């Protein structure tokens, strides 16, 4: 360590974060000063965490100041590590907090992905309760939501968050940065059991393949059994014209989505609520995704206060063929989830197909038929998915088969 460095957020208004200052010195040992808002309940615990972290990082000669505003341990650890790294060339050591109860969570290719909730990667106060709002996926964002000078801090915080915070049934996602920095993000987060990487501003299959190769490498080294799934985000006209190549660039891609803020800027058009300027692009995404056999997912709706606008936008997306939408505020999640929920007519149709499918299975028939009509396998698959979704949303009782006799 060579220079004085700081990390984290400071001040009375800061919540669930802390501020760390590291002042290297030769000789004199380690001098730790901790003040914490939770002194009465966790003062000793906070000091112990600081000591353990500094010890693991091999910090010996320094004055370290920590001002804590109720940060959880994994946040304190990340902030200290960031400050120590910033203090200049380190010994390469790192300190990973103990994994929490949600660390082993698994995902499947086929799960539904109606809502994905973006969380700024450097704002710890949003992490703890994010899953309680019921999103299908939680995205820890390292890209646009993080200021350039905080990229290093966000990467460590997101890494620790993935280890410790329980996201329940939500899919664990990270949006990485562009280019080389994004690949370094992959190295840092993939070993922490990330289910899906969102790749921003994709314009070519090669971009996806570079991330895929790096992610495969990282997850194998970490001994993780499942490949890391991918969702490319197309955000430019060039990306739209390469959409099919992008969608088919890797077998690990499960969904394709679009970012309209950048796209409309590229077009030189204003982004409007009704979205006429982007109809073509969105249809390209849907078609490319369907052609590749993956899920098309719509962009975000940026006016957080306009619930009705969000509902209309989600229903319109569904009518175009999208199966989900991004959320930038937790209160958008239930609106999006319900908009992408199947309608009573869809549920009834799917229910009958599933019953016919199961009946065919019991009789050992290779062909599923409903009345005089033969049902193709993709339609059965879709019906199973609709029923699964309907059950998950309590639109269909779990015992609907027996109820119907």
């Amino acid at each position: 360590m060579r220079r004085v460095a700081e990390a984290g957020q400071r001040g009375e208004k800061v919540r669930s974060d802390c501020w760390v200052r590291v002042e290297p010195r030769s000789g004199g040992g380690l001098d730790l000063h901790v003040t914490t808002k939770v002194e009465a309940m966790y003062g000793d615990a906070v000091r112990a965490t600081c000591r353990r972290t500094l010890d693991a990082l091999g910090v010996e000669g320094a004055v370290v100041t920590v001002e804590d505003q109720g940060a959880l341990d994994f946040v304190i650890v990340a902030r200290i590590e960031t400050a120590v790294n910033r203090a200049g060339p380190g010994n390469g050591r790192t300190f990973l907090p103990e994994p929490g109860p949600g660390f082993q969570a698994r995902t499947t290719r086929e799960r539904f992905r109606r809502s994905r909730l973006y969380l700024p990667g450097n704002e710890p106060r949003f992490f703890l309760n994010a899953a309680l709002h019921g999103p299908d996926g939680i995205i820890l964002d390292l890209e646009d939501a993080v200021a350039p000078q905080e990229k290093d801090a966000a990467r460590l915080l997101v890494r620790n968050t993935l280890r410790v915070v329980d996201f329940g049934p939500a899919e664990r996602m990270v949006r990485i940065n562009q280019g080389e920095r994004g690949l370094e993000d992959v190295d840092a987060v993939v070993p922490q059991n990330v289910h899906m990487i969102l790749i921003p501003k994709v314009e070519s299959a090669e971009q996806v393949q570079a991330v895929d190769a790096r992610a495969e490498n990282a997850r194998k080294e970490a001994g993780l059994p499942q490949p890391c799934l991918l969702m490319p985000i197309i955000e430019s006209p060039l990306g739209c014209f390469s959409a099919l190549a992008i969608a088919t660039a890797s077998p690990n891609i499960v969904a394709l989505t679009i970012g309209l803020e950048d796209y409309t800027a590229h077009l030189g058009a204003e982004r409007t609520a009704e979205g006429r300027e982007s109809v073509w692009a969105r249809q390209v995404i849907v078609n490319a995704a369907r052609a590749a056999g993956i899920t098309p997912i719509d962009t975000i709706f940026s006016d957080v206060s306009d619930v009705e606008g969000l509902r209309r936008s989600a229903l319109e997306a569904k009518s175009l063929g999208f199966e989900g939408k991004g959320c930038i505020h937790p209160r958008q999640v239930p609106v999006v989830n319900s908009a992408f929920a199947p309608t009573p007519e869809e549920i009834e149709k799917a229910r009958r197909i599933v019953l016919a499918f199961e009946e065919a299975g019991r009789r050992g028939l290779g062909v599923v038929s409903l009345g005089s009509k033969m049902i193709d396998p993709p339609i059965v698959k879709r019906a199973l998915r609709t029923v699964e979704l309907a059950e998950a949303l309590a639109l269909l009782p779990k015992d609907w088969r027996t109820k119907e006799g």
Partner: protein
Amino acid sequence: MDGKSGSVELQANALDRPVPMMVNGKPQVPYRGVHGYRATGCKAAPPIPSAADYPQDGDKRVRSLREALEACGLEDGMTLSTHHHFRDGDLIANLLLDVCAEMGKKDLMWFPSASFPCHAPVIGHMERGIVHHIEGSMNGPLGDYCTDGKMRGLGVLRSHGGRWQAIQDGEVHVDIAVIAAPCADLFGNANGVHGPAACGSLYFALADSMYADRVIVVTDHLVPFPAIPWQIQGNHVDFVVTVDKVGDPGKIVSGTTQITKSPDRLLLAELVARFVRDAGILRDGFSFQAGAGGTALAFAIFLKEMMKQAGVKARFIRGGSTKYLVEMLNEGLADYILDGQTFDLDGVVSMRDNPRHVASSPFTSYNYHGKGFFGSLVDVVVLGATEVDVHFNANVVTHSDGRLLHGIGGWQNCLFAGCTILAVPAVRDRIPVIVDEVTTLTGPGELIDVIVTERGIAINPRRHDLREAVRGTDLPVRDIRDIQKEVEQVCGGKPRSPRRSGQVVAAVKWVDGTVLDSVWKVER
């Protein structure tokens, strides 16, 4: 008065909390259970006045507050009361104590119905010996002054209903009540609905006006007789003083009426509303109370939508009122608002103009030493708390570290509702809300029915009926210990219990005047 609470004898009450047997020179009864104590004897009464001693023309004006205090016979050691309808915009309590200081008085007891950050100058008066101690809610700098052990007497924290009870029972004898009035006439009739400092009701000062030896009304808006409505009746009033300004209108009705934007709090509020609906409490003719906090307001808005969907109407809503409750009244979703205080201008205007928006006193709503009180007729109340324990006991007066945070307000009195719900975030910046034992017991668990957190709903095992009512719904009902365990896992283990010093600095009263718990000096 004994200044050293360290030497006061303590005794464990019915909930095993050590409480002082003597408070500010007066013997105390330790808490005996929710309904465990019966007071005896008669209510207090002020001296009998004669109209002959008051002006025939009804003009009770004197030139200044000082003149009024002199005429009232202000002496060292007296008890002076004020009300808190102006909240943080109050100018009169500070003026009163400044005048007392000018007059060279000592050892007064200030008996506000609540104190606010604007009352921080009282610390100076305590330092200089003008004020001996405060009996009333204390927070911010005043709260710290008390929990640092600097106040000479013990603080006494009472609910709004408990304050009426204490005055009525003679437990606190008010020598001089000073009532700041947004509108008054020269006879002393006064109300809070007119004038530049309009605040709605004046009923937190009603008991003071009825039971104090002497009553002074201070106004900045004098109208010819009669000042209508006469919330405070001039027949109780000795003197009327006019000043330029009684309060800062911007601070009287603002700040508490923002609906929360926090997604976690909104989730909490929605869960509470769903519980009220799914438990079958939301039905035609029901009644509810929701306070002015952001979560409570959001609850009212969710509930409103559910009421519309279900096509039901409330018989009455218990305020603190805000524009959201006023809208419900005006849209025909409730027959009445019974209102203890108005939190915004819409509330004030509605109370002034709408006969169905009724100002209610702590006597009608909350006083336990009455022949009933309508707080127990409310079907459901939604309240907050700083801590709850696994036995459903709750704390509203201190932080987890034992420092005074806020007053009891109507909180204790509201616990008698048909269903008492505490809406609390399970974690606040690493501080778990569910603990093994609350730092300061403010409400006994047997009156607290449901604790709603963003991580699940805990129903008091005593309330089989509520458990049955929500069985089979998709509400996340959980054991309180499960939620506690989950949160402790998140926060990094069980929190350390607060270190309790040996010195009592304040007593928390129950609604019947018994002592429910002690507040202890906090060592820094």
